[in-house]
């Protein structure tokens, strides 16, 4: 294989766990351990010499490309900016608020079957849900609805762009109440 180094590099780039020489040999269907080791050494040297943003590390009995420690600060900054993911419970709550608004917390909890106060607070903090007002019931419970940010978040022009259950059925979603 005349481009062994480049192939190796593509493997090292695409792997998550360190690659052992044995693993590499089996992927490349070669018996030439020496060639693989030489190529690895040559890559490591190249990264060093060219002062690349990453280096080839020998870890846990295998090889792995890692970012150069000098740049850890920036990589960390990037990782920290990594957005959070909404939990399943948050998605459920959000779905109920979206489809049933204006909705009371008790309605949400009735549908979900569990206390949803904490999740509602998170959604409020995230700006996806807001308090629309208070209902004239004992305790003056708050009524919730979705925000503009909710629309942006789901790339909706308007709330009326939400598909209806009927429409979902039409595009083939199976609903528990029909059949089975």
């Amino acid at each position, binding site marked *: 294989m005349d481009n062994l180094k480049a192939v190796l590099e593509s493997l090292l780039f695409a792997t*998550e766990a360190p690659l052992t020489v044995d693993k590499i040999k089996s992927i490349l269907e070669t018996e030439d351990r020496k060639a693989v080791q030489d190529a690895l050494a040559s890559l490591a040297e190249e990264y060093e010499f060219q002062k690349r943003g990453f280096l080839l590390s020998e870890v846990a009995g295998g090889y792995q490309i890692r970012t150069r420690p000098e740049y850890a600060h920036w990589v960390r900054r990037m990782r920290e900016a990594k*957005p959070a*993911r*909404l939990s399943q419970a948050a998605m459920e709550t959000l779905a109920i608020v979206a*489809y049933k608004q204006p909705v009371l917390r008790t309605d949400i909890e009735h*549908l979900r079957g569990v206390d949803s106060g904490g999740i509602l607070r998170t959604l409020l903090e995230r700006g996806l849900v807001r308090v629309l*007002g*208070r209902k004239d019931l004992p305790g003056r419970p708050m009524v919730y609805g979705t925000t503009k940010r909710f629309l942006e*978040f789901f790339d909706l022009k308007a709330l009326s762009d939400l598909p209806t259950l009927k429409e979902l059925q039409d595009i083939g979603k199976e609903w*528990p109440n029909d059949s089975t």
Partner: protein
Amino acid sequence: MEEQTQDNTAYLVHLPELFDGPMDLLVHLVKKNEVDIYDIPIALIAKQYLEYIKLMKAFDIDVAGEFLVMASTLTYIKSRMLLPPEPSEEEEEEDPRMEIVRPLAEYLQLKHAAEDLANKDRLDWDVFVRGYPDGAESSDEQAGGLVQVGLFELIDAFQEIIKRVSPQDLLNITVDTISVKGRISEIADILERRGSVTFEEFFEKQATKADIIVTFLAILEMAKSQIIRIMQHVESRIIRIFNG
């Protein structure tokens, strides 16, 4: 398939794969006969098309309704081709085949496009990136520190709930009710900004009757939920809507 026969087994080897739809079959026939799509020998193509359908039926393959619609279109065009042009007509009559040529040409274009797409370097097959174990997750992000999720995930979440509760009160969600909810949200936006708005203002910019009704229903619903208060000035008789 050039000739008819009762003996289907003879065709077993020749039975082409199942076609995705009538257009697909039509493309196949036009291509097989190497004819110009703008000058289709309609009698020949119609004949072969019908033979194919017959064959499908003979093999107990479900022939979808769309195939039959196309069959009748072809037969109709064929019959029109046989008629002499109406002498009384002043204008030149359009070639009856255009009815099928136009969609066929468009379909062909899109087949080219599909092929072009299929030839691109596909993620997780031709090219790979780091950290996508199965390529299922692309972290689209937005300002505000949240991963953007697809609408479908929201809907899936809703579906999960419906599985658990009686669906009765959830099934009345229609385009109209969602429109009302949307308007509620808009009205809440305005009230948040301005505190109070006159009743008339809400209807001034409405374009259609449907919009007016939706706005009215939204105000009613908001009043019912006590999100807003509706007051009328004693003298001016102006109705104002306040944040609740």
